[in-house]
């Protein structure tokens, strides 16, 4: 019997090898695409950040770390702090808003589910820039929101809803909320709500059941939601550019400014490199978590010896 099992295991691993090589073959085109259009440009950006600038906005000769040191002694810390703070706040607010929506959607009838999914997707049929521009109109000093707020005495006559951190945060949340809802919804839909009943049955109150059973049960969805909101928020450019003004600037705007106005490519590249590092960090954490899940999944395949 043992021999048979061994043979079966060998066979299984053989199949596994075949599968993996096939998978690589199949994903070769997309890997190639990523290599040519993402990996190589990223490497180029990193390389440029160590070059000297050229007075005409190009790349000069020789290597230096001036790009990095130039950033360090400027306005950088303020912008970095604002970028991280706004991205974190966006992520937290998006999660808090998305959670009840996702729970409601997951528990709703199939018909309502489809309708809600459609409603979430519909805004994407309008161009992103136009939607942001619409916010600019809504928040404009002459816009209706300002007027309403003013009549209720919520803002002073000369106050503005536009061109500040708050406006950037509001529009960031608006832009990324759907991306938070979708992974949460997927995770919650798969969640077995009988586990909550079991927890309640074992004496656990509602809050404890939510924190100890529900949240761990949908952790993958939460991680995905954080990733798809936090990372793009870190690199946002259009939103702070249109509704942020000088007080709402983020790293993305700074990079654009260095490249297009200062015409200092290495400096812009240096800032980009830092941003890439900031983005990769949570990505690495994600991969690490996935890896531990993977090892668990592999362990699951090794059948336990069970008593007879």
């Amino acid at each position, binding site marked *: 019997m043992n021999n048979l099992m061994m043979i079966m295991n060998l066979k299984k691993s053989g199949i596994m090898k075949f599968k993996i090589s096939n998978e690589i073959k199949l994903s070769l085109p997309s890997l190639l695409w990523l290599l040519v259009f993402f990996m190589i440009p990223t490497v180029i950006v990193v390389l440029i950040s160590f070059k000297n600038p050229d007075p005409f906005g190009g790349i000069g000769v020789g290597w230096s770390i001036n790009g990095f040191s130039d950033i360090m002694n400027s306005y950088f810390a303020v912008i970095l702090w604002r970028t991280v703070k706004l991205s974190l706040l966006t992520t937290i607010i998006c999660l808090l808003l998305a959670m009840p929506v996702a729970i409601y959607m997951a528990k709703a009838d199939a018909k309502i589910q489809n309708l809600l999914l459609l409603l979430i997707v519909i805004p994407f049929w309008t161009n992103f820039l136009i939607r942001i521009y619409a916010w600019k109109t809504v928040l404009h000093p002459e816009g209706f929101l300002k007027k309403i707020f003013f009549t209720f005495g919520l803002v002073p006559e000369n106050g503005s809803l536009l061109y500040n951190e708050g406006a950037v945060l509001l529009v960031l949340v608006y832009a990324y909320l759907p991306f938070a809802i979708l992974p949460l919804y997927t995770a919650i839909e798969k969640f077995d709500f*009988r586990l909550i*009943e079991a927890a309640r*049955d*074992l004496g656990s109150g509602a809050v404890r059941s939510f924190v100890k059973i529900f949240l761990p049960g949908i952790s993958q969805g939460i991680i995905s939601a954080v990733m798809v909101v936090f990372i793009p928020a870190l690199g946002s450019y259009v939103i702070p550019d249109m509704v942020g003004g000088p007080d709402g600037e983020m790293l993305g705007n700074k990079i654009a400014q260095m490249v297009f106005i200062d015409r200092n490519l290495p400096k812009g590249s240096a800032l980009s490199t830092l941003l890439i590092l900031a983005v990769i960090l949570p990505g690495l954490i994600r991969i690490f978590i996935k890896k531990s899940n993977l090892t668990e999944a592999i362990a699951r395949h090794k059948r*336990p010896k069970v008593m007879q």
Partner: protein
Amino acid sequence: MKDFLIFDGIHKSFGQYKAIDNVTISINQGEVFSLLGPSGCGKTTLLRLCAGLETPDAGRIILDGTDISNFPPNKRKVNTVFQNYALFPHMSVRENIAFGLKVAKKSRSEIKKEVDFMLDLIQMQDHADKKPALISGGQKQRVAIARALVNKPQILLLDEPLAALDLKLRQRMLIELDQIHDEVGITFLFVTHDQSEAMSLSDRMAVMNEGKIEQIGRPVEIYESPVSSFTAAFIGDTNFFDGRVIEILPENYSRLSIDGLPEAICFNDSERAVGDMVHVSVRPEKIMMQSQSPSVNHKMNIIKGVVENLVYLGGSTKYWVRSGEWMISAQQHHHHFQLDEKPLKWDDEVWLSWHADDGFMLERYHLDDEKMLTMPEDGDLLAEDIGDDEQLDDDYEFEKKRHHEI
């Protein structure tokens, strides 16, 4: 203690659907009480009402003298073993069992002591640190029981705990459940659609149908003296004959006329009068089959017929014998080496006989009962359960695979 758990006039509807219709049951302390019925009969709803996962529309649930009808689930000293175990997937076996104790804010050492005791009881010490995904269905089942029992509930509710296991494992788990009950002495309320589970485990059981109680009693009472045609048909197999009482005989016997069959003598303790239309139930295993005419006895009913169909079941053989318009099923146990006997075959002429005490006069109150009569229809013969076995879930698949490999 008597009347430990009382369901008092419980009603529960879901929209238009009446799930529980005026149910009153009283369960004693320490007994194993089963709720048995086909799917949709309301047995699981009754269990969920007891656990606090549903609230009754009317009626009271009284546990140990306290009305718990409106307590939330976490305030009841009641724990449940769920149908699909509902083990927390992100916690190890040990953490699963410890969950209730942690909620109850017991000290660490106390939790460890009690969890270890439970692991010992269910023989899972070696698997204590595994996640539920890594253990088999039978093991999950035991963890689910331990997770509930460790809280020392006043009542342990078991919702079809064996439904996801295959036959062999189910039989073994039944014995284990019984042993655990003997060891802990907690009252068990057990829900099942499988009559053999209910019969083998329960001290008493309630047969339910369409939200109502059909009969409450010890398994032997329910099997041997069903009070309704539903119970007779649902618990085990039976033959039903439509008859009319034509004469009252001494010692609680009556003579009946049955269309197309000779007059029959039947026990009549329900005091049916001459002229009453009745429904006589006779269990297949109570019918004797002989290839020669049996000696005449005034309390034996004898019917001559022809074997129309038979199914060899190993320990016994089931026959369907045609007599006039009637198809009578009879089950015969093999007391001798079967190949040495001269077995009865298709188209053999046989004499069927049954004792007057083995027939029951029942009222027939729904046509659906007829569906439950065991007529030989292909593919139906070996259907083991009346009810849903649709949840061939992962655990079950897992067990099956495991059995093939060993």
